[in-house]
């Protein structure tokens, strides 16, 4: 089962999404969900941002930090829908993910068992102690 982590802890997926790859977005539909690999170029979505509700960015391993730049670039492009990190993300990266522009993290049972909810909640204070907040204004 997959678990969604937000600032309030562990949740289950509230609905089924039909994730599509960025080169197969149907024209004229809204409420889309898109799956981006860690080597994807987010600017290819620039013409579709209005039609997308959720973008899921994959982390093949936690040491691959490209997803953080993808989320940041999506926000710089003006995307205001949901962005989700999925794959190998660890609790210690939760604050980075939130600060970079993600709304939530999707993890599997194995990670959830080793890194229980309380370890993620410990980083729910990601808005404090943030140098970027001091310098970007």
């Amino acid at each position, binding site marked *: 089962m997959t678990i969604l982590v937000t600032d309030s802890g562990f949740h289950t997926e509230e609905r089924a999404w039909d994730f599509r790859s960025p080169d197969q977005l149907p024209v004229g539909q809204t409420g889309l969900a898109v799956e981006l690999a860690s080597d994807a170029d987010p600017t290819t979505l620039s013409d579709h941002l209005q039609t997308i509700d959720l973008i899921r960015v994959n982390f093949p391993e*936690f040491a691959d930090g*490209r997803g953080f730049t993808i989320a940041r670039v999506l926000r710089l492009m003006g995307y205001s829908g949901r962005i989700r990190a999925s794959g190998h993300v660890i609790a210690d990266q939760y*604050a980075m993910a939130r600060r*970079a522009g993600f709304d939530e993290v999707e993890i599997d049972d194995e990670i959830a068992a*080793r890194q229980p909810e309380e370890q993620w909640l*410990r980083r729910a204070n990601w808005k404090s102690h943030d140098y970027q907040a001091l310098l*970007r204004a």
Partner: protein
Amino acid sequence: MYRYSDFDDAFVRERVAQFRAQVERRIDGGLTEDEFKPLRLMNGLYLQLHAYMLRVAIPYGTLNSGQMRQLAMIAERWDKGYGHFTTRQNIQFNWPRLADTPDILDALADVEMHAIQTSGNTIRNVTADHFAGAAADEIADPRPVAELIRQWSTDHPEFQFLPRKFKIAVTGSPNDRAVTRAHDIGLRMIRNEAGEAGFEVIVGGGLGRTPMIGKVIREFLPRTDLLPYLEAIVSVYNALGRRDNKYKARIKITVAESGLDEFRSRVDARFRQLRSHFRGADQAMLERIERAFAPPAFRSAPLGRYEIVQRTDPAFRSWTDTNLAPHKAEGYAIVTVSLKAHGATPGDATSGQMRVLADLAERFGHDELRISHEQNVILPHVHKSDLPEVHSILGEHGLATANVGLISDIIACPGMDYCALATARSIPIAQEIAQRFDELKLEHGIGELKIKISGCINACGHHHVGHIGILGLDRAGVENYQVTLGGDGTESAAIGERAGPGFPAEEIVPAIERLVHAYLDLRNGRQESFLQTYRRLGIGPFKAALYPERVDANAA
């Protein structure tokens, strides 16, 4: 000097608390060693040959006496009574226990220090000219900019898992003492024709197994654009840098593979997106930091016994010749305290020595100390009238070696004595060279000569930019030392040229001796340094000195 704001203090304390919890989770199994590794690296903790090693940042190389005393205390309480100053303005403790490291980090936080981002694939401790704020040739003090970059890069959410480590250096002087051309990003503070302050931005320099001199990506970057421009570079690198091969993961390879122009146009595009997000808070912060770095109240006083002692005491005279640099304030000098006593481990200082240096800084040096990338300690502001006393106190503690810039002022990485990656020893080679030339009583006659030694291809000892570089390799289980010539880490940066086949350990010191004798024969008088002679004549005559048997064979 910059003092922590409440924000900085709370940040560092919070990080220590997080790390304490991470150490506990590692010990109870909540974190695998694989997962713990990047987290400990983000807090400066390496696993080395014999033990953990903790690398503590000395941001832009600046310390006060209280901080130096705390380093002495840490070395004594949790280590073996000494620390090792590195070429990246850090100090390394080689023997801490994992369970003690959170307490060490707390002790550092007590004096506004930390070990954050001194390792790992992230933006590392920002380095700066070690004579910053003191040098006579300086355009502007680079430390406020370095502190601004420290704050911006600390815990930067986008850049904690880069393809590889990322090093930034800043200089405020046209004479580059910060090796800016061998960094991922080098910043040179300059003024444009209109007299406005800004930066020359250099990208893609680096040493390691593929040494490269950095390229100018922006000739003049206005001062106010600094953070968004840096962020654009690192962001483009994060997306583009190779992750399939760690030897090709540094930005120098990214720039080389995409081409400087293509890389620049991507950076410019990202910069345009980012620029509006920095709306002045960064500049207000910079102004606050600049006020904190206001120069100390220099005193105006007669030179006292300085000139008399200089005439009457040859040891003092010789030390003032080599270990002083011109200060911008009248009557002052910059003192470099050599950590390279002949036969000692380059860069090591005992707790006792650290306390002596702290006392000297407090009594005679406006409470400031610096660590240089050449692994020496600097008292940046000493009035000349105090120099005789400073010199004699240094002498009582084995710290008055008069060899700065000379052949025995060697940079050497830890090598086989400590480092898990080493293929050869480097410290003992440095010690032997220093002792040999001391015996020969030649070093003052030789003049300026920079020898730099690395114990493997990673080049932590900067051998590529040594006038003479020595690289220790492993040839079928036997140490073998390769010599490079003509390297230069300053504004006229160059990568040294490989001279030829390497030498076994017992032949490397005689080889260096032949090389130096060749230089002494070839130079146009004492004014022509080794590097100048090399540039005039090329590698030929030096090769002949290194490999005499080959010349004989050719002649026969």
